[in-house]
């Protein structure tokens, strides 16, 4: 899977309160959460983001609360993936469980700027800044994790597995 998008750059220690402030946590509706994503760092963020855009940040992205609403909000705002120097522990786990691809690369995080067009190849871990014409290497996402992300997160992934493969009938589309 390749993720291509314009970059929105943030600094170190972007915490879960900034990603989605607690005042909005009386709901778990992705649309509602997405509409407030990053609003305490940039009130207009959601208005400016295009589907597929990429967040690039510094150290310790996602620190603070265990709220899964954070990766949900990022995804629902239209962000395709997050690149950071590194991620806080609980967020790291939550991001994959929610199907939000994340990549660690200190070099990429330090070099890439807001507005750059970046392509991330999840399979190889290659991050390419097309604006700066620079390449960076992150840890690739192994196929089983990519499948989990493509399914939309851990629960959807497990359910799909539990249901087994789509029935294939020749010349006829599956009705499911």
């Amino acid at each position: 899977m390749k993720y291509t998008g314009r970059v929105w750059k943030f600094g170190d220690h972007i915490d879960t309160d900034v990603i989605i402030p607690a005042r909005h946590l009386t709901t778990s509706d992705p649309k509602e959460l997405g509409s407030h994503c990053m609003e305490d760092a940039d009130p207009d963020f959601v208005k400016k983001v295009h589907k597929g855009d990429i967040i690039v940040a510094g150290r310790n992205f996602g620190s603070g609360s265990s709220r899964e609403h954070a990766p949900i909000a990022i995804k629902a705002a239209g962000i395709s993936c997050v690149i950071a120097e590194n991620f806080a522990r609980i967020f790291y786990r939550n991001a994959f469980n929610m199907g939000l691809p994340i990549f660690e690369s200190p070099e990429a995080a330090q070099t890439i700027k807001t507005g750059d067009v970046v392509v991330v190849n999840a399979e190889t871990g290659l991050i390419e800044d097309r604006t700066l014409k620079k390449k960076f290497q992150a840890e690739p996402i192994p196929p089983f994790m990519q499948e989990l992300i493509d399914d939309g997160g851990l629960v959807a992934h497990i359910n799909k597995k539990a249901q087994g493969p789509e029935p294939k009938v020749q010349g006829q589309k599956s009705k499911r």
Partner: protein
Amino acid sequence: MSQTITEKILAAHAGVKTVHPGQLIEARVDLALANDITAPIAMEVFYKASGKKVFDPKKVVLVPDHFVPNKDIAAAEQCRKMRLFAREQKLTHFFELGEMGVEHALLPEKGLVLPGDLVIGADSHTCTYGALGAFATGVGSTDLGAAMVTGQTWLKVPETIKLVYRGRPRPWVSGKDLILYTIGDLGVDGARYQAMEFSGPALAGLSMADRFTMANMAIEAGAKNGIFEPDDSTMAYVRERSKKKGKILHSDPDAQYRETRYYDLSSIEPQVAFPHLPENTRPISKVGKVPIDQAVIGSCTNGRLEDLRIAARVLKGHQVAKGVRLIIIPATPWIYQQAMSEGLLDIFLKAGGVISPPTCGPCLGGFMGILAQGERAISTTNRNFVGRMGHPGSEVYLASPAITAASAVLGSIGPVEALPRLKKVRSL
């Protein structure tokens, strides 16, 4: 093989003799906890994962404490979902208003966590229970929902940082000051993905309340868990609250640590964390003039009876400065009652403070003490991130109950010693 207390607990719950840092294990959980923010998603996960019955209705604990007493209709709906789930699943430990308290003060108080236990909670401050010699860590709702089905979770064994505390504490220095100092030293990601083991001769003199405060804030250094080895104080605390004793484990003398850091208490002043990170700590003597609009004493960090006693000692006979709002939140109904019978609430009211029912409200900017733009609060809570207590243009300073109470009287952040001497000071 020599092991740390964290490794021993993880090994015991994975059903193996030893584990090593970096190893992935599947571990049995003794308790799975969620609150009114995280439980609704965990319950969805539970049902989607074809869960019909929780693995053990005695081991799934639900505490609606964040937006409770319900702040609005949406909050009420979240709690209703939890209530229905608790009834359907016949959960032993669902805490309705009246018995509900701030979760991380409530569970130890009810004797639900024992030394040697493995606890996961869909709340980052679940690490608090490390004070009892348990392995406790925060997870997301999905992991919690899965654990509600299976009674298990997967974990990566963390490396451990050993923190050794020695020497005698200065006046008014509490567990909060020690942990703020430690986070100032380590940085907010200094213990990322690791265990923090609190150790050293000075800890024997610390109350359980102080230890809960320190373990509580391990996550503020990025740690997976913070842990104390059980001692006589731990056992006395547990004996009063549970018939069971738990499993008393200690780190082996030659256990492997990622690093060891030493702290001399005689050189640590009361600490204040400046906005907007818990690592921005300064000793009280270097704070300068910082006027405040609000002071908050409460939360899973410092809403215990011992904290309220300290606050009352400082506030007795004094008045909150004009223009300052003081909010005091006993963390559980039991603490509330004790504080009342000891006369602490009387002192707070006479000083001009307001007393809130148990809730996490103000700590996370939920309700009951939201800051307006440009306002500044000193608080005994655990986070001072941008917008944490309200408007993104407001500021939160973190400190101990003593410093917070003194600051409420002074009108700006300052030490207890700066308070005017009272003519008649009767002991509490």
